[in-house]
């Protein structure tokens, strides 16, 4: 029998299959420093931009134009173009905001928490999950800003010395939200950019075009891979991960305070923070799967984003989905157990009220269908995973709709009850942000390395220093 060369040996533990040979490796065998570098950087530098990229980017840009049209019309007319009314003052806008912010959580979770837990499989997916976070947070920010009705005064939310001598109300969760979301956006951007620096240096050194060399060179800031630099770099990266970990938990906690601090039936509960955070991770991983599956297929990245990644993400989805299901159960139980008739009415109204179909669709999408992930055959089937991830994305959107609209439309006084129906502009703004998200993602895939090249190098067996 011929000896298998070292470079063809499977990756060492903990990246290698742990539970028998049935668990696939984190990286396909046979890669070296050059092949990893070339394969990932070629997507940006040398491979011809595929036709579907132009098609996809074109569609995404069309939807972005729809967003711009919707927002322009909104600015000229007012938020009356949406279906919002009294009593349903928060509707699609805040639903979409919470949905996008939730999606944004997976990026930082994968980058920071999994880094601290030494889950090295995260390496292949952290870069684009972080990019996804940034784009999702950008989409999220659109909604509260335009929901103010006078978005050109949105800076009033920040504390700054002004001639009116006014200061923000720091006892309000809405101001906490401003700080939480803007801090989250800033720290996610820093984390993403710091992670990119060494890869930008790789692109600078490998780019054939003078323009590319200049742009990547400026962004790489003269990175040269010095050992002293790497040492501080790694310290900084770990510290940032340590800072981002409590941050990511705090952001959706603060978002849940927007509701939990209010005395609306169905909102005023202490389970909201943990249940929102679990829901955020759930939807975030669903979105990472939704994006990773087509991306690995069209760019033939099956070597780097292996079945191991898809299965791990499916497992995270299963666990967080169960936490979310537990949240739904506790919500209904406490509503009944509290003995408060207004609280007790909330679950009944959800299950049997005018929006009952939305509620049951939510249960179907978020609780029933994801149980299929218990089965290995489902977790190893790429198309099924893709479909489940789409369903969870929809389910998490429905969850926010149920929490927001169904609590507001019937609170204490039946005389002030009302109904909400979305208008064309509600839908166009939601679809428009999806377009913006995809357009940014397409640009990212085209111009930046979507997988962290230097971290992939460290995963190779030849990266180990022998004593």
């Amino acid at each position: 029998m011929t000896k298998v060369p070292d470079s063809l040996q499977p990756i060492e533990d903990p990246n290698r299959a742990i539970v028998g040979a049935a668990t696939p490796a984190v990286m396909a065998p046979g890669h070296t420093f050059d092949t990893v570098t070339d394969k990932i950087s070629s997507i940006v530098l040398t491979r011809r931009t595929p036709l579907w990229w132009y098609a996809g980017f074109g569609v995404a840009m069309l939807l972005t134009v729809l967003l711009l049209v919707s927002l322009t019309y909104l600015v000229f007319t007012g938020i009356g173009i949406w279906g919002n009314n009294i009593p349903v003052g928060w509707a699609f806008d805040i639903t979409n905001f919470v949905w996008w912010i939730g999606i944004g959580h997976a990026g930082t979770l994968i980058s920071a928490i999994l880094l601290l837990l030494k889950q090295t499989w995260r390496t292949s997916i952290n870069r684009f999950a972080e990019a996804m976070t940034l784009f999702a947070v950008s989409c999220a920010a659109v909604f509260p800003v335009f929901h103010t009705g006078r978005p050109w005064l949105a800076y009033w939310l920040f504390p700054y010395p002004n001639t009116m001598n006014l200061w923000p109300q720091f006892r309000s969760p809405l101001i906490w939200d401003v700080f939480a979301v803007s801090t989250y956006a800033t720290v996610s951007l820093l984390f993403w950019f710091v992670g990119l620096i060494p890869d930008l240096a790789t692109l600078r050194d490998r780019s054939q075009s003078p323009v590319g060399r200049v742009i990547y060179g400026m962004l790489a800031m003269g990175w040269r891979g010095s050992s002293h630099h790497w040492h501080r770099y790694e310290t900084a990266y770990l510290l940032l991960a340590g800072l981002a970990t409590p941050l990511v938990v705090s952001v959706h906690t603060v978002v849940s305070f927007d509701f939990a601090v209010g005395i609306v039936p169905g909102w005023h509960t202490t389970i909201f923070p943990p249940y929102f955070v679990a829901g955020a991770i759930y939807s975030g991983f669903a979105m990472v799967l939704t994006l990773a599956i087509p991306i690995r297929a069209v760019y033939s990245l099956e070597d780097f984003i292996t079945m191991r990644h898809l299965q791990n993400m499916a497992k995270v989805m299963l666990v967080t989905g169960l936490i979310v299901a537990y949240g739904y159960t506790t919500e209904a139980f406490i509503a009944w157990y509290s003995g408060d008739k207004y609280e007790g009415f909330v679950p009944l109204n959800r299950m049997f009220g005018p929006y009952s179909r939305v509620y049951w669709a939510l249960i179907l999408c978020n609780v029933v269908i994801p149980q299929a992930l218990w089965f290995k055959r489902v977790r190893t089937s790429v198309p099924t995973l893709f479909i489940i991830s789409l369903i969870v994305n929809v389910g998490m959107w429905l969850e926010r709709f149920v929490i927001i609209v169904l609590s507001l439309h019937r609170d204490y006084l039946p005389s002030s009850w009302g109904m909400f129906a979305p208008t064309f502009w509600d839908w166009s703004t939601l679809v428009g942000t999806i377009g913006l998200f995809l357009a940014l993602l397409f640009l990212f895939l085209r111009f930046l390395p979507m997988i962290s090249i230097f971290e992939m190098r460290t995963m190779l067996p030849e990266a180990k220093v022998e004593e």
Partner: protein
Amino acid sequence: MKRATTVYGLMAEFEDPTSLVAATQRAHDAGYRSMDAYSPFPIEELHEALGAHHTRLPLIVLIGGLCGGIGGYTLEYWSSVIAYPLNIGGKPLHSWPAFIPVTFETTILGAALACVLGMLALNGLPEPYHPVFNVPRFALASRNRFFLCIESKDPKFDVEGTRHFLETLNPREITSVED
């Protein structure tokens, strides 16, 4: 007029991390101190082989976090109690529990900004020009090659002697780095 070129140092190229760490260790043992090693990914052993010290970065991050936290809380206290006191349902003006979320966020923001800016500042980045980039093959330092550069400012540096020493380390190539 042609500018006189001075030698920044001598650079040896290696093909794998193990040889680079071994070479760096030997250079350190031989008494060289002004040197740097370049690799396409972080190598913990390399930092130790260079005999380098701990970084001050954690302290900078701590200070950044403290400034963020104290600044955030002070801003809330000052604006809610002194600059713009509002009586809301008879709640105390200094309602500190409500000030904690923002204090937390500004702490993280201060620490994260200090972390990234501190790391860049300690590393001397952005640095548009550095002599090592004059070596054409150095472009591979961001791909698959490993470099050790002994700088001419080292008291033990001597163009002939150091080159001879580097040759004993079995590098793939030795290049003179022009300043």
